[in-house]
């Protein structure tokens, strides 16, 4: 598929995009996380698209998934209103404070720390300690 963006034309492999997006969407809605960190590499590396076209468009794609996942979880009775209301203000504040702190930190170091944290958490979930 041909995609035009800001005067440039790109060739987007929609078979890779849709298959990958479909699989990421299943996992993301099944486990309740946002698919961003997986979608961006899929579109930049898998579909060979430049970063500046990916940022906005991947967000749009993920939004479709989040919207549908939310509706389906609600249908199956997995949505707890009170629990939602507890976390809503917390994430709101976090989303506001986060970028302020982010300006002062090196993203590379943050990512390495996150990497270590994720591995620890993963090993915990896999029951290895």
């Amino acid at each position: 598929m041909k995609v035009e963006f800001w005067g440039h034309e790109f060739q987007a492999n929609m078979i890779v995009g849709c298959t990958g997006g479909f699989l990421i969407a299943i996992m993301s809605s099944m486990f309740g996380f946002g698919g961003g960190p997986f979608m961006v590499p899929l579109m930049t590396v898998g579909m060979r698209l430049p970063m500046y076209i990916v940022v906005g468009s991947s967000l749009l794609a993920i939004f479709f998934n989040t919207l549908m996942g939310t509706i389906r979880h609600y249908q199956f009775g997995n949505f707890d209103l009170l629990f939602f209301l507890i976390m809503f203000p917390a994430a709101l504040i976090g989303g506001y404070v986060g970028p302020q702190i982010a300006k002062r930190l090196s993203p590379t170091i943050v990512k390495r720390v996150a990497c270590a944290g994720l591995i620890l958490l993963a090993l915990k979930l896999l029951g290895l300690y």
Partner: protein
Amino acid sequence: MKQRNIFGFSSALFAVFLFIAIPIAGAQTETPAAPAAPAASLANPTIQIDKTEIDNGGVITVTGTAPAGLPVYLEVWASEKTVRTNRFDNKKDPKTGQIPYIFYLTYDMPAYYKIFVPTDMKGALDEIKAKGKAWKYSEALKALGADVVYTVPGKMKIDRYKATIMASIIGSRGDLLEPMDPEENRQRSMQLVQVRFKSVDKLLGADVDVKPDGTYTAQVKIRSGLAPGKYEIVAFAVDKKEGGKPIVLKSDSVTFENKISFPVMYLSTAGTSLNIIWPFLLALVVSIFGVLMGAGGGFILNPLLVTIFPLPHTVVAGTVMPTVLFAQGSGIYNYSKIKFINWKLGAGIGSAMLVGGFIGPKLTELITLDQFKFVFGWILLVLAALMFWQTTPGYLAKNKKEQAILKEFKKRAEESAKAKG
């Protein structure tokens, strides 16, 4: 890309709770299968409790008298609050060799259920605990002679659905099957009880101290973080007859109330009470960290929530997901203002993701908490690898170029948006 974990989404209250009608037939003699039992000489046990109110858990002393020499069991359950419980049966049937693929669902599970057995059964109980995760509730009840006092959950209304691969793909629960007969309902209810409460300690306790003269005392410990509302206790004395059906003598039921007060609140879908400050703080810290590392907070928040708090994974996944809706919506709005979204590309991949999002939540129901943790563990390892790759020098150099172009384009986009406005 920074995907902020801001909450949004309004909703109507979703809590359809059916209350179990608990027939409190006064003192009566019950025999499970054989009716006319000659129990004339044996009196039903009596029961008293020392207090009728506890504050987010506590200890209730239960005393009473039962016919001398008989073991005394206590059945304790939350009679006001029920929770949804489901179980997907995909284990091969050892008799027929076929996999049933049946989905069991009830809305009537008591938010608390426990059977207390005599203290002299402590050894037998420890043996069950030693089995670890392989323990079976129905076998444990039998081993302790408590299967005859298992009453309340056995009467839950359980729906069963025949799940097919096709039905799962289109995201339906499958065909609703005929209701089960009371005996099978009882057996299936035990499996659901185990799914809900999981551990031996939550379901069984050897705390009833029976004296030779038939008087008994028990310290019934109600832990904190349980459902508020009315709880009931019934005492049973069981006369095991050699070769015959055991005679079960049942006491009146006594009621006490578990009260909770702010900041402890009851999450009705999850069936537990929580001090809401902790999940709030956790969500706050995780969402800040999520912004910093450039991945949604759900990756860290969900596994922590199911590990730290007694919350079902379905509720965690189903409640955290909507929280990013507004953040994403506002992000899309901001990008669209500066024309930074390619609608064709986004909607094209989005339509594939729409289908994926339709199927995913169905699969959450079909897996157990342990499977949830296991798969999530692997997902996190992949994510960690992705994160590490993003800190390698090669990626950083490439990214620097990309970011410069991105900035340049953003500037141009903003300028043109301004010029128009």
